[in-house]
């Protein structure tokens, strides 16, 4: 597997200039994801309305390029999604990283991270924001993802 597949130009761009990188005031849902093993820490902020529509998503934290890019792409994609579609996508994303068959249409630009599945030690990085997002929706304040898949 080539390094360039993991660090695609598009992914690197998201790392250099992360989208939605700010602490959201009045967020309806917030959760912290951490991976102590490599020192990644990402906080996800969601603004969810009473119809379970995610209006906005943002993040903040210290993390590697993969985790940062994944969060940038995910938060972009989340805006306008229903919470259950977001949760379904989280599942699909996880399956994709495990090397399973997935309908990448479900995932939109998030599928840019598919090559991470060939780098098992990086899977937790890519998954960190998704775990935090699901935790936020579920009302869990903090979650860890450490083990390679």
């Amino acid at each position: 597997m080539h390094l360039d597949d993991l660090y695609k130009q598009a992914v690197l761009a998201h790392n250099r200039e992360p989208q939605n990188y700010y602490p959201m005031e009045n967020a309806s849902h917030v959760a912290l994801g951490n991976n102590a093993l490599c020192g990644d820490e990402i906080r996800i902020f969601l603004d969810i309305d009473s119809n379970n529509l995610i209006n906005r998503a943002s993040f903040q934290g210290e993390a590697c390029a993969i985790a940062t890019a994944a969060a940038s792409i995910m938060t972009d994609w989340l805006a306008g999604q229903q919470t259950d579609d977001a949760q379904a996508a989280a599942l699909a994303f996880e399956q994709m990283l495990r090397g399973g068959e997935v309908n990448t249409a479900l995932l939109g630009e998030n599928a840019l991270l598919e090559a991470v599945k060939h780098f098992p030690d990086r899977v937790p990085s890519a998954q960190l924001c998704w775990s935090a997002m699901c935790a936020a929706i579920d009302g869990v304040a903090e979650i860890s993802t450490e083990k390679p898949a």
Partner: protein
Amino acid sequence: MNSAVDVAEKWDIDAIRAQFPTLNREVHGQPLIYLDTAASAQRPLAVIDAITDFYRNHNANVHRGVHSLSQEATELWENARTTMRDFIGASSCKEIIFTRGMTEGVNLVAQSFIRPRVGPGDKILITAMEHHSNIVPWQLVCEQTGAELVVAPVNQRGEVDLDGFSQMLDERVKILAMMHVSNALGTINPVAEMTRMAKAAGIPVLIDGAQASPHIQVDVQAIGCDFYCVSGHKMYGPTGIGVLYGREQLLEAMPPYHGGGEMIRTVSFEKSTWNDLPSKFEAGTPNIAGGIGLGAAATFIQQIGVENISRHEADLLSYGTQRSLEIDGLNIIGTAADKTGVMSFTIERVHPHDIGTIINHAGVAIRTGHHCAMPILKQFGVAGTARASLGMYNTRQELDVLVEAIVKACKMLR
């Protein structure tokens, strides 16, 4: 192994490297450059051969046998103990307890020596730079007994603040547990001096020697400590084996740790009696092949000469440090005056984990993350570093490749 002696005299690096089969590996089509010796060293043929020779030719359980294989196994095993006694300068084989590794050694002392001796109001003193293996066992004891964990300060170079340390030495401190050499920073602590200070205050001393024994001379009697722990796999030996040195008098007074075969003299359902040292602390069938391999590793180090190894690694450290400072935005964590070959660093706007992944594709193996030393990294304001750590087999050329690879990685990521 006469050849190893020759090698040492003229420091023939090619001959040394030829002893380590793993160094012939390629990674992603590039020759392996192994800079992760602090996590686990590579194994020389002498160690691998000692293990296979045992399994192929002398394989049997030790101590309990009347047949030849068992006697041969016992002799190999006890010879390894003698080798380790001499390697760390203990005065008797009774003081050499084979353990699974450094971690088990600390846990044994924490449970068997300290747990019965402390209660609320008592203190266990460590330093701020300890490895989790020399923190968590004490936290468990504190939870079990109500004792308190106290921490000697470390300065911004990564050295123990001796003034701060000396002020913490009082009669409520029931043990000082500290590392000889830091795996995260490379710092060589002045353990003899600190031991003297602690002993003057009547405090027993345990030293974590996991990162010392492969790199610098260890002499437990010169240090004056009561306990000293090493890990086989860190000193070019097998996994699953280590040594706990303990002063005979203290070991004699301690209750057994594990119950089982070999550590008993007699067993009845009413009452069992304990065997002599070191058997009292070696319940069950030990890691026989591991112990024999560890003896071979110690002999290998002695033949190369630990002072030769220290000198070679010191040269590499100064070369590598100087070269790495050429890298834009690189910040070295751990700049003690006295260091072993550990280069721990962060780079601005580039995460260690990405560096690690990218340079792995150039064949360079480093470690990234918290190095089981979260608290000291936190003091330095980082959650993780990239760490290149050296062994006797590394070369200046390898450090050149490291630096080039990092520069490329930075370009890619920034």
